[in-house]
C-alpha cells in the first residue's frame, strides 16, 4: 500500500477521516505510473481518489514547468465546482499547488494567462481538451503532463464527445508519452469496455479499482390520491403531492427530463407554494449567472428545492440534499441510480428518492426502475466509436497545431480506442474531405483547406481557418440558440417601442420561430410575452397572463432503456405484481384483461379496432419512441403498398398506433394482410433505405454531421438572416450529395448515426427478431384501455417539416371552407 505524504496524512487525521481503500489503491497506481479506472458510487470520495497521486507528487516545492494534471469534466458547472472542492483541501494541507479552470465560459484573458503560466492542475471540459491540443503551443504546454483524469467517464464515452476526447487523448499521448490516464465512473454494466477505452488501442486495458458499494437506496413511487393521467408528460396532477414532499425534506432535488417540463413544474410549484419556500430552477438554457446563483445558494443550504434537468445529473456535492424527486419516468436504471445518488452524499446512508410517474405507462416503468435499482442492475451502454465527423474535426484541429504527416497522424488516430479499427482508406477519405471536401469532382483544389507540401506534410492553407475551427468546435449541435432578453416597452409618439434589457437565457431558435409577437410562454419561471427579434436575439416582456402557451411537445428526450422495457413487459404479464401498483393503475390493467387481452412477456400484442370513420392498429413493442417511430414509418409504407390506406401514425415510448381508411381487422382475418409478414425483419432492407433517404430525420442527422465535420459553420445566433448572410441549407446539400455522390463520407457517417441514434435500427432489429412468431392479434370492436394513452397522443405531436403537400393543401382548404361559409 502506498504511503500518504505527511502533509496529506495529517489533513486526514485532523478531519478524523481514514483514507478509503480505493483512494489508496488509486494513489498506488498513480505513484507507479499506472493508469486505472475507478468505479465507485457517488459520495465515495472519487474525486479525491483521482487527485491523490497528483497532490502527493506536487506536495513539495517544485518548479512550474507546465501542466502536471488535466482533469476533464463533462459539465462546465462541474468543472467550477471541482476546482472549488479541490482548492479547499489543498489550502488546508498547505500544498504549493496552483489550480485553474478552463471552460467555454472562461474569458480570453484568463486563457491567455493559463498559456503563459500554466497551473499545476487544469480543470477543463472535453471540448477544451480538443482546443488545447489544437494549440500550436500544445507541445510546450503539455510536455510535463503526468496525469489525465476523466470524470464521469461512463457518461462521456457513449457520445460523440467521448469520441473526440479519445482522439485528443491520442494526441496527448504523443506529446507526453509518460502520461497516465485515470477514469472515474459510476457503476456500469461493463467496466471492461471502459478499461480498454482508457488504454492505447491494442495494449493491455488499464487496471480496475472498485470502491465499496453504498447503502441501497430507498425508492418510493408516488401514490397520489389524484387521478394518474392516461398520457402526456405534465405530472401536473401531482403538484400538491410534490409540494408536500418538499415541505418534509431538508432540501429536495426535483429532476425532470426536459427544460419545458422543468419550467412548467416550477411554475406549478410556485402557484402551490403557500409558505413561500425557497424553490429554485436550474436548466441548461438559463443564463450562466443565474445558474451560478442557484448553485451557490444550494451550497449554502439556502434552498428547499431545486427543479432541474440533467444539468444537475452529475456528481456535484452541493449542499445537504436529502431527497431526490424524479418527475416522469427515469427511462433507464443507470440514470435513476445516478440521480438518486445526488441525495445524501454520504456513502453509508441510504439515499432517499421518490418517483412521480406522469402517466399510467410510466407507473409501470417506475415500478420496473425500482425493481432494477433495488438489484443495483445497470443498463448496458456501449462506447461510441468511429465517427467520421469527429475525426474530420480532429484532423482540422491537428492542422491548427502545425503541419503533420498523414502516416504519423494515422498511426496516432488508430491508437485511440474509438478508431482502433479504422482502415487507411477511410482515414484518407476523411483527410481528403477536410482538405477539399472529398468530392469526385476536384473543383475545390484551389480552395483547399489543407495543402500537401513538398516535404509531404499537410499544412493549413490560411490562418483564418484556425479561427473557424475554434468557433465551430464540439459535437453538441443543438438547435441554434438565441439569447432571450427582458425588454422594456415605451410609448414613443403613440408607437410601442421595445428596448432590450438584461439577458434571461437562451432559447432554441426553432421554438422562437413558432412564436408570434404577443404569444406567451414560460421561461426562467415566469410567464413572458414574446416581443419579437432584434439583432441580438429575442425580446420578451413580463406579463400577468396566468396560462402561457407552452411548447406542445414535452416528451422525454431519453428513450426507455432496453433493460427497463423488458421489465415493464414482465410486470404487464404478471398480475401478481400489480398489487404493488397504485389501485387505479391496477384497475386499468384488469379492465384491459377483461376488455381485450394482456400479452405474455415474450409476446407483442397487436390490437385492431374501428373508431369514428377510421380503423386503428395499435401494437405494444415497449422499445422506446425512436425505434417505434421508425417502425411506424416502415409499417405505414407496407400498409400503403398492401392497400390498407394508412393515414398516419404516432409512436409513444410504449406503443405505436397507425390509423387507416381500410378495415384492418378484416384485412388480417381474411388473410389479405399477414401480421407475420407485416412485422417481418425484411422491412429493414429496401423499405428502410427508401424511407430514410427521404426522411426529415435523416436530413437532421446529416445537418449534425455536416456541422461537426466542418462542412458548414454553426450559425451565428441572434441574427435574422438577410439574403446575403444566408448559408446553404443542409437539406439542399444532402439532396445534392445523394444525387451526385451517394458514397460521400458524410452520407456514410450520417447513415451510421441515424442507424444507432435517431432511428434506433439496432433496437428495432432486435425487437423484430424477438417478436417473430410471438405476435398476439386481438381484433376489437372499440378502443381498448391499453390503447387509450397512445390515441391521446395523436394530435399532440408537433414537428416542423419541409413543404408537406398534404398539410399545405389542408391549410388552403380549411381557409377556403371558411371563406365559402362567410359568403
Amino acid at each position, binding site marked *: 500500500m502506498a504511503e500518504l505524504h505527511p502533509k496529506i496524512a495529517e489533513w486526514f487525521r485532523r478531519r478524523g477521516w481514514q483514507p478509503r481503500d480505493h483512494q489508496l489503491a488509486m494513489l498506488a497506481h498513480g505513484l507507479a505510473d499506472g493508469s486505472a479506472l475507478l468505479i465507485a458510487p457517488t459520495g465515495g470520495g472519487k474525486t479525491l481518489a483521482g487527485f491523490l497521486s497528483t497532490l502527493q507528487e506536487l506536495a513539495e516545492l517544485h518548479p512550474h514547468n507546465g501542466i502536471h494534471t488535466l482533469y476533464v469534466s463533462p459539465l462546465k458547472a462541474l468543472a467550477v465546482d471541482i476546482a472549488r472542492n479541490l482548492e479547499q483541501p489543498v489550502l488546508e494541507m498547505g500544498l504549493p499547488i496552483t489550480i485553474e479552470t478552463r471552460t467555454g465560459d472562461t474569458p480570453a484573458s484568463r486563457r491567455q494567462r493559463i498559456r503563459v503560466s500554466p497551473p499545476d492542475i487544469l480543470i477543463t471540459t472535453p471540448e477544451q481538451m480538443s482546443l488545447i491540443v489544437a494549440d500550436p503551443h500544445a507541445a510546450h504546454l503539455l510536455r510535463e503532463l503526468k496525469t489525465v483524469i476523466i470524470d464521469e467517464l461512463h457518461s462521456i464515452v457513449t457520445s460523440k464527445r467521448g469520441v473526440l476526447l479519445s482522439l485528443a487523448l491520442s494526441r496527448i499521448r504523443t506529446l507526453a508519452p509518460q502520461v497516465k490516464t485515470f477514469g472515474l465512473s459510476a457503476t456500469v454494466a461493463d467496466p471492461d469496455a471502459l478499461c480498454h477505452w482508457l488504454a492505447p488501442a491494442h495494449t493491455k486495458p488499464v487496471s480496475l479499482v472498485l470502491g465499496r458499494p453504498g447503502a441501497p437506496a430507498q425508492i418510493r413511487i408516488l401514490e397520489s390520491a389524484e387521478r394518474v393521467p392516461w398520457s402526456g408528460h405534465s405530472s401536473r396532477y401531482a403538484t400538491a403531492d410534490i409540494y408536500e414532499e418538499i415541505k418534509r425534506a431538508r432540501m429536495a432535488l426535483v429532476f425532470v427530463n426536459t427544460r419545458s417540463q422543468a419550467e412548467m413544474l416550477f411554475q406549478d410549484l410556485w402557484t402551490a407554494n403557500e409558505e413561500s419556500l425557497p424553490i429554485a430552477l436550474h436548466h441548461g438554457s438559463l443564463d450562466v449567472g443565474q445558474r451560478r446563483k442557484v448553485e451557490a445558494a444550494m451550497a449554502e443550504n439556502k434552498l428547499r428545492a431545486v427543479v432541474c434537468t440533467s444539468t444537475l445529473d452529475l456528481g456535484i456535492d452541493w449542499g445537504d440534499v436529502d431527497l431526490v424527486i424524479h418527475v416522469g419516468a427515469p427511462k433507464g436504471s443507470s440514470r435513476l441510480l445516478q440521480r438518486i445518488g445526488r441525495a445524501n452524499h454520504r456513502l453509508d446512508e441510504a439515499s432517499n428518492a421518490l418517483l412521480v410517474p406522469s402517466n399510467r405507462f410510466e407507473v409501470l416503468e417506475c415500478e420496473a426502475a425500482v425493481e432494477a435499482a433495488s438489484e443495483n442492475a445497470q443498463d448496458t451502454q456501449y462506447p461510441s466509436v468511429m465517427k467520421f465527423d469527429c475525426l474530420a474535426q480532429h484532423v482540422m484541429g491537428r492542422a491548427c497545431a502545425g503541419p503533420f504527416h498523414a502516416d504519423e497522424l494515422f498511426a496516432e488516430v488508430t491508437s485511440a480506442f474509438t478508431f482502433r479499427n479504422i482502415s487507411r482508406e477511410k482515414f484518407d477519405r476523411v483527410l481528403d*474531405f477536410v482538405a*477539399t*471536401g*472529398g*468530392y469526385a*469532382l476536384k*473543383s*475545390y483544389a484551389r*480552395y483547399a*483547406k489543407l495543402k500537401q507540401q513538398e516535404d509531404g506534410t499537410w499544412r493549413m492553407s*490560411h490562418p*483564418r*481557418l484556425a479561427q*473557424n475551427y475554434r468557433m465551430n468546435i464540439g459535437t453538441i449541435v443543438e438547435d441554434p440558440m438565441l439569447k432571450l432578453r427582458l425588454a422594456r416597452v415605451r410609448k414613443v409618439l403613440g408607437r410601442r417601442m421595445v428596448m432590450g434589457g438584461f439577458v434571461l437565457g437562451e432559447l432554441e431558435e426553432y421554438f422562437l*420561430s*413558432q412564436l*408570434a409577437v404577443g404569444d406567451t410562454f414560460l421561461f426562467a419561471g415566469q410567464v413572458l410575452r414574446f416581443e419579437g427579434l432584434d439583432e441580438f436575439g429575442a425580446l420578451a416582456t413580463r406579463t400577468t397572463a396566468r396560462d402561457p402557451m407552452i411548447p*406542445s411537445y414535452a416528451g422525454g428526450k431519453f428513450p426507455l432503456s432496453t433493460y427497463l422495457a423488458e421489465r415493464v413487459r414482465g410486470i404487464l404479464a404478471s398480475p401478481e405484481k400489480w398489487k404493488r401498483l397504485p389501485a387505479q393503475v391496477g384497475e386499468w390493467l384488469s379492465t384491459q384483461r377483461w376488455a381485450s387481452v394482456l400479452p405474455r412477456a415474450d409476446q407483442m400484442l397487436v390490437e385492431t379496432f374501428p373508431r369514428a370513420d377510421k380503423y386503428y392498429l395499435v401494437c405494444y413493442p415497449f422499445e422506446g419512441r425512436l425505434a417505434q417511430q421508425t417502425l411506424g414509418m416502415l409499417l405505414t409504407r407496407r400498409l400503403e403498398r398492401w392497400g390498407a390506406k394508412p393515414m398516419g401514425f404516432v409512436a409513444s415510448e410504449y406503443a405505436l398506433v397507425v390509423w387507416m381508411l381500410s378495415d384492418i381487422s378484416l384485412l388480417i382475418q381474411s388473410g389479405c394482410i399477414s401480421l407475420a409478414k407485416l412485422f417481418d425483419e425484411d422491412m429493414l432492407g429496401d423499405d428502410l433505405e427508401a424511407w430514410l433517404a427521404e426522411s426529415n430525420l435523416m436530413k437532421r442527422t446529416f445537418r449534425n454531421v455536416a456541422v461537426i465535420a466542418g*462542412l*458548414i*459553420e454553426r450559425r451565428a445566433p441572434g441574427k*435574422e*438572416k*438577410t*439574403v446575403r448572410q*444566408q*448559408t*446553404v*441549407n443542409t437539406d*439542399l*446539400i444532402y439532396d*445534392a*450529395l445523394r*444525387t*451526385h*455522390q451517394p458514397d*460521400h463520407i458524410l452520407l456514410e457517417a450520417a447513415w451510421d448515426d441515424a442507424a444507432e441514434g435517431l432511428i434506433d435500427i439496432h433496437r428495432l432489429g432486435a425487437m423484430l427478431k424477438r417478436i417473430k412468431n410471438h405476435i398476439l392479434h386481438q381484433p376489437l370492436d372499440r378502443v381498448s384501455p391499453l390503447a387509450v394513452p397512445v390515441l391521446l397522443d395523436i*394530435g*399532440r*405531436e*408537433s*414537428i*416542423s*417539416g*419541409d*413543404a*408537406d*403537400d398534404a*398539410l*399545405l*393543401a*389542408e*391549410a*388552403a382548404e*380549411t*381557409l377556403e371552407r371558411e371563406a365559402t361559409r362567410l359568403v
Partner: protein
Amino acid sequence: MMPFSPKQLKPSNARRPGLSREITIRLAGASFVPHLSGGLYWPEEQTLVVSDLHLEQGVSLARRGLHVPPFDTRTTLSELKNLLAETAAKRLVLLGDSFHAPDAHAGLDEESCIELRAVTSTVETIWICGNHDPDPPEGLGGEAVTELTLGPIVLRHIPSPVPHGCVEISGHLHPGASVVSRGRRTHAKCFVTDQRRLIMPAFGAYTGALSVSSRAYDGLFDEPEAQVFMLGRSAIHRLPLSRVR
C-alpha cells in the same frame, strides 16, 4: 388545313407534371403559370422567367473554407433546361443574381459554359443585372439589361416603387413562407403577389428563403389582397399573405 397561328405552337400544359393549369397568377390582365421549381411561365409571351440562380454559389462558399458539394451549378442548369423543354418557351428572362459573384461566370467549367451557350442560342435570353452580378456575363450569349418592359409589365431584380398603372415582377428577396396546419409548421419557397407586383422565389439549387413576414417586405404588398403561392413537393398552394409567416 387550318391557317397557321402562333397560338397552336403553344404547348398544352394540362398533363405536364410541374406546371399546374389549375393555378395561374393574374397580373395586369395577363395569366402566368407558376412552376414547382420556382420558374414562372407567361404563355401569351412564350416567356419563361426565373430569378436568383446564384450560379457558382458553391465556389463562393468554398473560397471561405466551406466545401459544400460542387454540384449546384449543374443542378440549377439542368433544372432550367428541363423547364425550358417543358414550357417550350421562346424567351428566357433571368431576373438577376444569375451568378453568385460578379466574376463567377469566369470560373464556370467547360460543361456548364456549353450548356449555357446552348440555351442562349436556342431561346432569346435576357440577363437582367442583379446586385450579385451587376455586369453582364461575357461570352455566354444573350443580352444584358438592367430592366425589361414587356407589355404592361416591368421586370427587374430589386423590388422598387411601382408607378400607378404599372406592374412589376422582381426577385432579390428569395421569398419563403410557413404555415401551421394540425400543429405542424411547414416551410416552403413561394411567389408573393398582389395586384401591383410579384416577387419570384429563388431558383438556384442552394438558395434559401427569407420569410415573407420579415421586415424586408415592409411596404411592398397590399396586405388584404396579397397572396403567396407556396411550392410544395408536388403541388403549388395558394394562401393569403395574411395567413402565413
